[in-house]
């Protein structure tokens, strides 16, 4: 057994001794066995061809939660979307913070609580649902997460409830005495015809050194509608592996917006299962990389039934010596006639040393479907540049402005104004020569 696996095994044994959720122990054990057998994926695996996770494997992160850090009020205020009046679930270094969370004044019957609490107090429901919407057999990171679940969000929206306030789940990571890994696990269950918006915000403070290995399972009952926003702004030294799984029933609608701008080495996976007729998923994504960052976005959509729809639009802006990956796969199963599936990935390369690997894939086993996919890699449009310059805008500003316009198309889809504004602000700050364009936006 190599040193890394040995290290995780030691932590795992320690965790098994201190956990109070005995009913879940057998899941942990079988998940750990899978991780132990397969280890971290190598680039020989097709799914990991462009992303080498050796830097994660060679760090011996502490996997036992220790939130013994102080987050001050200024830091919190800068992180939360105060104007939006969200329902707040805040986690510090992987552990629920009652102090910063706000789950008061909830509508009747809705359940919003942290996973550590739910594992003990909601085990009847969790027994039926936790690990039901994700397959840890095929992903060693998901297996590792399942073995090490310590906290996260459990949200259960009852049938017919339309939740007006968004639920904001914030994962803050800040330097601790040792390098640490967190394994957040979120379970979101949407009852029939319910409606909600959920934000997962991953943020690092002070260039902290850590590894976030997060898994979210969502289940949408008939007619349910969920808007899901993932904002990944981990610290520049952080590793982030995120896995979002959706399981959708008849006429449900999932909207995913994934904004990924932080981290040193990042992988975002979305696995969408359209299980019944009329299920629809929209996936918008934006990744912005600079310096030596590496951000990989993988999506997979399974159209199992007729009249299902998927529509993906991912955009990337790559600068410095950074690298981006987009690999989107759509599988149309044999009985899934009359489906629609669209996939688009557009990239802007701002430097000669930046790199993007893009691979949209369609696998179609039905014959009466509407599908298309496309990918572009390019520089800024010369006609647009000339038009702006002919209107007295200097070249540098024009370039920055067009880059902003390129990414703003994704941000524009966000329906909460104050969250959108904050993200726009964040994005502008990441653009080259951003100070030049403030009067235009």
């Amino acid at each position, binding site marked *: 057994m190599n040193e890394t696996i040995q290290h995780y095994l030691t932590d795992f044994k320690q965790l098994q001794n201190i956990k109070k959720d005995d009913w879940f122990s057998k899941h942990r054990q079988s998940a750990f066995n899978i991780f132990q057998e397969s280890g971290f994926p190598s680039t020989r695996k097709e799914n990991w061809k462009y992303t080498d996770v050796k830097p994660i494997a060679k760090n011996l992160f502490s996997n036992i939660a220790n939130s013994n850090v102080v987050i001050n009020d200024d830091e919190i205020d800068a992180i939360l979307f105060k104007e939006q009046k969200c329902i707040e679930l805040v986690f510090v270094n992987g552990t629920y913070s009652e102090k910063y969370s706000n789950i008061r004044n909830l509508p009747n019957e809705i359940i919003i609580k942290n996973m550590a609490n739910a594992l003990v107090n909601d085990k009847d429901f969790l027994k039926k649902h936790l690990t039901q919407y994700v397959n840890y057999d095929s992903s060693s990171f998901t297996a590792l997460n399942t073995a090490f679940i310590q906290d996260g969000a459990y949200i259960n929206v009852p049938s017919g409830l339309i939740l007006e306030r968004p639920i904001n789940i914030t994962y803050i990571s800040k330097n601790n005495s040792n390098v640490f890994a967190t394994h957040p696990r979120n379970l979101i269950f949407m009852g029939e015809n319910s409606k909600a918006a959920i934000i997962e915000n991953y943020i690092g403070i002070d260039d902290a050194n850590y590894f976030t290995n997060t898994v979210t399972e969502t289940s949408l009952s008939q007619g349910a509608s969920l808007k899901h926003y993932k904002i990944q702004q981990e610290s520049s030294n952080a590793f982030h592996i995120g896995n979002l799984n959706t399981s959708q029933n008849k006429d449900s609608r999932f909207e995913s917006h994934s904004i990924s701008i932080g981290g040193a080495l990042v992988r975002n996976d979305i696995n969408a299962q359209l299980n019944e007729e009329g299920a629809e998923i929209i996936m918008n994504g934006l990744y912005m990389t600079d310096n030596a960052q590496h951000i990989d976005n993988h999506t997979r959509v399974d159209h199992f039934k007729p009249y299902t729809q998927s529509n993906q639009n991912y955009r990337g802006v790559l600068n410095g010596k950074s690298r981006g990956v987009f690999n989107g796969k759509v599988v149309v199963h044999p009985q899934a006639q009359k489906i629609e599936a669209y996939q688009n990935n557009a990239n802007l390369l701002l430097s000669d040393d930046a790199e993007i690997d893009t691979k949209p894939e369609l696998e179609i086993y039905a014959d009466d479907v509407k599908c298309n996919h496309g990918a572009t890699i390019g520089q800024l449009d010369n006609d*647009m540049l000339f*038009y702006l*310059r*002919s*209107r007295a805008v200097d*070249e540098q500003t024009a370039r920055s*402005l067009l880059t902003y*316009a390129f990414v703003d198309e994704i941000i524009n889809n966000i329906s909460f104004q104050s969250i959108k504004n904050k993200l726009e602000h964040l994005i502008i700050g990441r653009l080259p020569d951003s100070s030049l364009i403030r009067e*235009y936006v």
Partner: protein
Amino acid sequence: MLHIKDLYTAVDNKKILKGLNLSVNVGEVHAIMGPNGSGKSTLANILAGKEGYNITQGSVSYENENLLELSPEERARKGVFLAFQYPVEIPGVNNIYLLKAALNAIRKHQGEPELDAMEFMNLVKGKMKLVQMNEDLLSRSVNEGFSGGEKKRNEIFQMAVLEPKLAILDETDSGLDIDALKIVAEGVNSLRNKNRAFILVTHYQRLLNYIKPDHVHVLSKGKIIKSGGPELALELEEKGYDWIN
């Protein structure tokens, strides 16, 4: 104001302008007419500073400066304006913010105080009436989803706000119906004054029914082969370009 002398240009080794001469004085309106492929749009683009043209011979001076050495943005700040034949759509860049920034960049360059949002909006409201611009179009992205006619009107609207010294209109009449053409022409006419010059690049004489030029030039195979007064345009319309060749 503008002196083009013996100008030769090529794109990808294909010669386009072949010894073009033209002088424009302040206050004058010049029409440049010619068949497709004669080099009309090339001339307009070169004056505005578009890249990709190789200037192999000749000179262009604008207000006693070598125009060809200036970047497009410097030309704009010094009062050169190009109304595009095909205005590009720029999703995500707001029409009105762009115009405000453009105006203030020009004002700053010319030593005038920049306008604040209120002053700017007052100015804009007046100019919109001039070209009957729909106010909704202002807050949209530059030209995005505009009809052909709306795009052309937006160009004239921008021109009205920016008040250039030298305005070059590249086929502004093409694709316009007669009502839109009249609106565009009225916009141009209202901006005519003794401090401003216009170069109207057009294929058809139609526009010149509404904007009366001081001078008409016929461009063919990269050079001006005939110049005259407004009557030349009528003659061309009647006899066609073959007559001149």
